[in-house]
């Protein structure tokens, strides 16, 4: 298929529809409002339904109901709205409901601002709602990747019966790039025999539920979920690495920030420095293993983020204390510059204490 020039938010909608999502429940918030707008005009054309909910709380609970009834369904929001959706996400996780949630991040805390940010990393990777649960988190860095991973999200959600988060930021949502919509992969998925579709008098009632009052039952349920999470950690890690085996400095960055870092790395390489990159594409599961491939004589790791350093925890865990970890970050909608990143790389390469 030919490439088309599309705005990120609209491309997300187009990708979801291509993946077979016919239902969208959402609530407006900058910088993602073009996505519900797009869905409102496109979903009726495929016999689906767009509904503007009265709040993010209602929207995610509508998603819960629809997912429980066995369809591919999606919602999207930006940071303050994501905070409200956490209730429904933990219920969906507990009830093992596949659904896709897009967070086009902006700065916080509180009302924050409307400019791009990556400050919902903890919330996305640590749960955010109550209880022991995980969600797969994709962090695309271009609109092409966003389109690809939105489509992939629906497959992974169904495959593991899990809510999947696509963690984008205001830049992805608002910029335009050329994208190609590939045909969705053909994946054999189990039929949703657990869904509430009406018994038709032909089977026992299905119950979609996250309540287990018997502590032993709840423990069993939790360990069952945990086994699935372990399986995901084993099979679903996505990461891009560049030249980490002989690097003197390795940068770690995800999403749009990784593109700025790539520019800085190119500048440093032109100056003869050996710089590598680890770009997590899934933030959960985090690519822990690749850190072992880093050159043992590397001088240090530089984490670059549009947050005060939320990913550093994961980087330190993955690095297991082998190398010093440094940080370059901007917040509030401010964006790290290639020059400041290059300067940090040069300092680390020069051996700072």
């Amino acid at each position: 298929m030919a490439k088309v020039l599309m705005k990120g938010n609209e491309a997300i909608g187009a990708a979801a529809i291509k993946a077979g999502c016919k239902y969208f429940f959402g609530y407006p918030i900058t910088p993602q409002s073009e996505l519900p707008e797009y869905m409102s005009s496109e979903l009726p054309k495929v016999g689906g339904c767009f509904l503007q909910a009265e709040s993010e709380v209602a929207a995610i609970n509508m998603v819960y109901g629809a997912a429980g009834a066995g369809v591919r369904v999606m919602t999207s929001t930006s940071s303050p709205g994501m905070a409200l959706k956490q209730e429904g996400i933990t219920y969906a996780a507990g009830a093992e409901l596949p659904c896709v949630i897009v967070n086009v991040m902006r700065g916080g805390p509180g009302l924050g601002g409307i400019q791009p940010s990556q400050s919902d990393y903890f919330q996305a990777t640590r749960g955010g709602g109550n209880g022991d649960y995980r969600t797969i988190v994709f962090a695309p860095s271009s609109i092409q990747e966003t389109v690809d991973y939105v489509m992939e999200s629906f497959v992974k959600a169904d495959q593991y019966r899990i809510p999947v988060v696509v963690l984008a930021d205001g830049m992805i949502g608002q910029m335009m790039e050329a994208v190609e919509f590939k045909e969705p992969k053909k994946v054999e998925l189990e039929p949703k025999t657990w869904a509430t579709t009406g018994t038709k008098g032909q089977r026992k009632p299905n119950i979609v539920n996250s309540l287990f009052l018997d502590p032993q039952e709840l423990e069993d349920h939790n360990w069952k979920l945990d086994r699935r999470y372990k399986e995901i950690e084993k099979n679903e890690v996505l990461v891009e690495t560049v030249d980490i085996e002989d690097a003197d400095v390795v940068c770690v960055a995800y999403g749009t920030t990784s593109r700025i870092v790539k520019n800085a790395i190119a500048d440093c390489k032109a100056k003869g420095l050996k710089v590598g990159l680890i770009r997590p594409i899934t933030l959960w599961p985090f690519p822990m293993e690749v850190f072992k491939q880093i050159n043992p004589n590397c001088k240090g790791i530089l984490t670059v983020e549009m947050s005060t350093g939320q990913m550093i925890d994961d980087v330190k865990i993955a690095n297991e204390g082998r190398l010093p970890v440094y940080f370059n970050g901007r917040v509030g909608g401010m964006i790290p510059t290639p020059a400041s990143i290059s300067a940090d790389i040069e300092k680390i390469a020069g051996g700072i204490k």
Partner: protein
Amino acid sequence: MTIVYEKSKGLTDAQTHYCPGCTHGIIHKLVAEVLVELGVLNEAIGVAPVGCSVLAYNYFNCDMQEAAHGRAPAVATGIKRVRPENTVFTYQGDGDLASIGTAEVVHSAHRGEKITTIFVNNAIYGMTGGQMAPTTLIGQKATTAPLGRTIEHSGKPLKISEMLATIDGAKFVERVAVNNPANIRKAKKAIKRAFECQIQGKGFAIVEVLSTCPTNWGKTPVDALKWLEDNMMPYYPLGNFRDFEEDK
């Protein structure tokens, strides 16, 4: 032998956990009978609340989803929008519907969502041990209103049916009680009509059922029924507030 009475096929064989004398059980029975009589049990998808009826999904003999506290109307909206051919209902207590979930029920009514809501008003939070609800009466004692509810502190009890009846999308609104056989029969009629409202595609339907909580009211089951008649019925008058036939 002729069977003159049997348990509704709309209920499972599970034993309910409700306290002796609690009227949740009667209301379950009525809803189940109506689903069977209307021939929609096999298409029905119910949404259980958080509250004493949290386990309703074990009692109704149809597909069920459990919702977060107050969110049943949103969950039901999601189900109904993707499965418009199914009969979708919520079963909610007054803490669930009139407190934490007010926005969800108001907006489901406002959209004219084609769902049926059974709203069990027992003027108290049952499950968590008798705290004050928005529906708790003035002077009524609750664990979080130890001296009795006052208007100055908590406002007057919220009249949900009257409020929802002002919303155009609410096509059927009726308040009933299950305190005696005559009223139980009327309650069943109202519940049936509320499901017919959905089946005929008219819009949102709600039946508010005045119910007892002998345990948290600290009364015997019989005294609880009397208390309902003497105290709840004067403040929450029974009757139809809206019917889809009369709707212009």
